[in-house]
């Protein structure tokens, strides 16, 4: 979330799209309903199915799964055509006026630079025109046909209301209501928030879906303001933290690109040149020279100009005394991935399925239920030599070798029938402590990092994961202790000292390293502005720097702060003294936009929602929130989007920001019942197709399927189906479908049905409901069904995993699987 949960109360209009907030983030509704009560805010819900969220919406608009860009592209066009955009904001805070290279173009669904053989774009034409000082050229009148605004207008010309409604299946009346209500937030005194979740991201165009949101919000001037923002409602209690800690192949902690084996990563200096925006063309041969350049500042760099400090502090945290200038601060201990290889979830399981992976750690996750194409992923597990599973329960993944794991309602040639004797995988199950049986911090969706204290003893011999990793780290280190091989140095020299004087793991030692310490005295670094790239600071994750402070001889972990008084004068609900938010306790990012460009005049009519303002006398930005711009940069220089090289909000995603185009364009899901009416490309041209032979076609599989969750369960259900109180509330795997489809197929409510795709079949109870209605797509009646993906064969509530049906294909940018739109057939069991 660019804003945070409590901030939802400040909105004038909420567009909930691709999220079932009332069910999956129930507390968000507390604040939305408050906005409605106190500010007369409107709530709009756009979803294929009428959900518990829809019941609380002022406007409910159905849309066919996988057509969000059509829906939002139409909204962009509507906003531009009807001049609903916030003009001053657009001009000052976005790249609307930037001129784009003449070579950039778009035709037949393809942007310039497409390489069909590799399904990849050469992004060199997706760039601005630069002046002689190296800065992008602009046209403040927004009239130049090569300016971003005009290109955008042209791009969305095709997204007229009728075409959009033909694609999305949204009734035109409803669509117009949504457009009218939401575009009203373009008024300077209004803000609107967009709340989304996996309904948006789990598509082959997932990232572009989110981009469309960003564009709508920038047009309407809703970014960086209370009650606005693009707000991802994240799904797991610390998925934000796990992402911050970079449990992802493509980054290392703090959203820094992970090193690759490309020539541009071959040593630390090359790496810094590549990873620091704007550094590519600069002349420097040593780190010292580079430091001087940074000190002077260089164009198109943004705040990431500091990357070298983050990187070297990280290396210092990991390899301690072994990280010195002479060995590139141990840069070479860090693994370098193959630059041409994808290591994401789908890729990992494809490799595992081919037998390329021997060992797997499963850290409180459950791919046998939650992974896409779960039949294949389960089979992949059987090819491992060993697997370590750490969880509270024997979940479906830990028990994948047991008989029930291989039972299927229908024989399917894709699914082998294995028995325990066939599976040669050794499985180590380590019982973990539950959340309140241990202590530590978690980052919630609004980036607040809150401490969780230990309230109970772990059950039996179960242990906190911290203990497990610490002990395992020590064991592994001791196995390598005698090695003097250079290839083992990354382990032998690894700084791994988290025990207290009694030999117990000390969480504060971990936290201190993570939040950053001065190497000389071991005291906390007060904020990432103080991180250095000379080895004098060590910091495991720069975005957390500042969470720990030193005051009056005492180290304070700010995540433990529990002062719940709202510090904002106008009652905006910032609660800045409650826990700590990254970065630097900033509660609403891009908050420079909460005031007009001059930095002193509030947006007309919106005096109460100003977060920061320029204090000329003091020469700095002041206000209720921590400013998101140079603290002492005067208004005309204080850029609003400092993590972008441009410093501006981007309608046009320049260069390699996106892999599949600078503007979002509608492409159909991989499996779609219809051809793309917007352009000639059916599928996102930049998406990798892993299993071409597994693409279901509408003749055999005419029904759209989507997956989702309910409030009573969570994710793969390991943490809910094992709880009797929750099993009671939603006891069986069920599939929702319209009354029309049920009639067509002779399906009765409450009876079993079988759903099939090219990947497999599942059996579940039918929930026939008026809440699903067939869509009218180009005059054709198209059915969609919904599957809960919480179920598996373990626990108090059981059922077939919906993901046995989902495909191995993902978003072009992130490789997040397309769980949300695929084709199936359904019949009576």
């Amino acid at each position, binding site marked *: 979330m660019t804003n945070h949960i409590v901030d939802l109360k400040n909105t004038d209009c909420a567009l909930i799209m691709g999220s079932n907030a009332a069910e999956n983030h129930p507390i968000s509704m507390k604040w939305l309903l408050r906005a409605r009560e106190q500010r007369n805010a409107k709530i709009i819900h756009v979803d294929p199915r009428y959900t518990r969220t829809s019941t609380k919406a002022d406007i409910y608009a159905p849309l066919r799964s996988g057509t969000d860009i059509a829906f939002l592209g139409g909204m962009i066009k509507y906003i531009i055509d009807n001049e609903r955009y916030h003009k001053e904001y657009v001009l000052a805070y976005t790249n609307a006026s930037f001129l784009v290279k003449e070579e950039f173009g778009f035709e037949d669904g393809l942007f310039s630079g497409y390489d069909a053989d590799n399904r990849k774009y050469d992004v060199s034409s997706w760039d601005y025109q630069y002046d002689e000082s190296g800065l992008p050229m602009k046209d403040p009148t927004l009239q130049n046909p090569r300016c971003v605004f005009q290109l955008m207008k042209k791009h969305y010309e095709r997204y007229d209301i009728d075409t959009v409604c033909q694609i999305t299946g949204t009734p035109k009346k409803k669509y117009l209501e949504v457009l009218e209500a939401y575009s009203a937030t373009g008024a300077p005194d209004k803000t609107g928030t967009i709340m989304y979740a996996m309904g948006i991201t789990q598509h082959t165009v997932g990232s572009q879906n989110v981009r469309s949101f960003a564009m709508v919000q920038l047009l309407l001037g809703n970014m960086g303001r209370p009650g606005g923002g693009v707000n991802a409602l994240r799904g797991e209690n610390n998925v934000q933290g796990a992402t911050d*800690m970079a*449990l992802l192949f493509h980054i290392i902690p703090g959203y820094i690109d992970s090193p690759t084996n490309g020539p541009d990563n071959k040593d630390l200096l090359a790496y810094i040149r590549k990873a620091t925006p704007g550094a590519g063309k600069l002349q420097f041969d040593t780190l010292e020279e580079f430091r001087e350049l940074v000190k002077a500042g260089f164009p198109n760099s943004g705040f990431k100009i500091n990357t070298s400090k983050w990187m070297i502090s990280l290396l210092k945290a*990991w390899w301690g005394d072994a990280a010195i200038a002479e060995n590139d601060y141990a840069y070479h201990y*860090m693994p370098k991935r193959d630059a041409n290889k994808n290591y994401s979830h789908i890729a990992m399981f494809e490799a595992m399925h081919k037998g390329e992976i021997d060992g797997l750690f499963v850290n409180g996750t459950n791919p046998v239920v939650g992974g896409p194409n779960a039949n294949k992923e389960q089979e992949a597990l059987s090819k491992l030599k060993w697997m370590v599973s750490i969880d509270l329960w024997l979940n479906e993944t830990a028990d994948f070798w047991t008989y029930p794991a291989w039972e299927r309602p229908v024989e399917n040639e894709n699914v082998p029938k294995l028995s325990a004797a066939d599976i040669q995988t050794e499985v180590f199950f380590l019982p973990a402590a539950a959340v*309140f049986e241990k202590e530590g911090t978690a980052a919630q969706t609004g980036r607040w990092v809150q401490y969780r204290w230990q309230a109970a003893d772990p059950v039996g011999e179960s242990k906190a994961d911290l203990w497990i990793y610490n002990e395992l780290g020590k064991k592994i280190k001791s196995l390598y202790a005698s090695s003097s091989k250079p290839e083992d140095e990354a382990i032998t020299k690894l700084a791994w000292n988290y025990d207290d004087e009694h030999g117990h793991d000390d969480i504060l030692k971990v936290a201190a390293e993570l939040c950053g310490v001065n190497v000389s005295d071991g005291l906390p670094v007060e904020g990432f502005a103080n991180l250095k790239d000379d080895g004098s600071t060590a910091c495991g994750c720069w975005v957390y720097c500042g969470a720990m402070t030193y005051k009056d001889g005492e180290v304070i972990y700010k995540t433990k702060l529990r002062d719940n008084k709202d510090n904002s004068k106008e009652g905006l609900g910032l609660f800045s003294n409650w826990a700590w938010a990254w970065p630097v306790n900033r509660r609403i990012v891009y908050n420079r936009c909460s005031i007009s460009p001059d930095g002193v005049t509030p947006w007309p009519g919106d005096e109460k929602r100003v977060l920061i303002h320029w204090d000329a006398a003091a020469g700095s930005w002041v206000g209720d929130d921590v400013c998101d711009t140079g603290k002492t940069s005067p208004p005309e220089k204080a850029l609003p989007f400092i993590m972008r090289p441009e410093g501006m909000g981007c309608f046009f995603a320049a260069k390699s920001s996106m892999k599949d185009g600078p503007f979002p364009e509608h492409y159909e899901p991989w499996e779609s019942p219809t051809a793309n009416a917007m352009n000639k490309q059916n599928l996102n041209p930049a998406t990798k197709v892993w299993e071409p032979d597994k693409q279901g076609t509408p003749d055999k599989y005419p029904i759209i399927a989507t997956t989702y969750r309910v409030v009573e369960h969570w994710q793969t259900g390991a943490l809910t189906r094992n709880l009797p109180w929750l099993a009671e509330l939603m006891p069986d795997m069920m599939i929702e479908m319209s009354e029309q489809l049920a009639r067509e197929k002779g399906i009765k409510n409450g009876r079993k049905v079988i759903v099939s795709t090219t990947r497999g079949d599942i059996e579940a109870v039918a929930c026939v409901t008026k809440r699903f209605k067939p869509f009218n797509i180009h005059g054709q009646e198209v059915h969609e069904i919904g599957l809960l993906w919480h179920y598996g064969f373990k626990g108090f509530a059981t059922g077939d995993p919906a993901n046995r049906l989902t495909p191995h294909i993902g978003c072009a940018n992130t490789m997040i699987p397309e769980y949300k739109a695929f084709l199936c057939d359904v019949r009576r069991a």
Partner: protein
Amino acid sequence: MKVTRRQFLKVTGATAASFALVDLGFNLQATASAVKELRIKNVTPVPTVCPYCASGCGLVVYSERDAEGKFVKLLSVHGDPDNPINQGGACSKGAAMFNLREIYDEHTGEQIVNPKRVQKPLYRAAGTDKWVEKDWDWMLDQIAQRVKETRDNSFIHKETIADGSEVIVNRTEKIASIGGSGLDNEECYLLTKMMRALGLVYLETQARI
């Protein structure tokens, strides 16, 4: 009938008070002596954060401890009234946190440890059809050995890269790690650090699925 002086806390909207019971001057008469003693009376709740969705609702855990302060059993878990995000609220999942550790038996109504919780490390040998209980030391030793064996056999220390030079790449593609979004930050940090030091590149969490 027993008449006792009781206190009433009036809770209005957002101003939900916290752990202390506030006297607002009402006198309540206990109608029946049979009203159970408040089982969380004089129990200090311990704050935590909900382990489900990422909204970050605070929860408080009430537990019974013996005279030495040793944990005995859970009493109740509910929304943390101090937490500004949820102000004491909790949906069905958050409210069910008690069940993460303990449950009430369906037949006897007795409070027992959730029988699905695994209480000892378990090992399943290749090709066998059962779990065997093992101690922690054995398990961690074995895992460390497997890790070393697999890593050493598959480790790519140096590689000739596109520009023809040979660089250290320090990676293994034979070990993978998934998950972690349910862990605490500090745990995620140790995990990311340990795995990358071992040379893992197949490193993923639930953010991608």
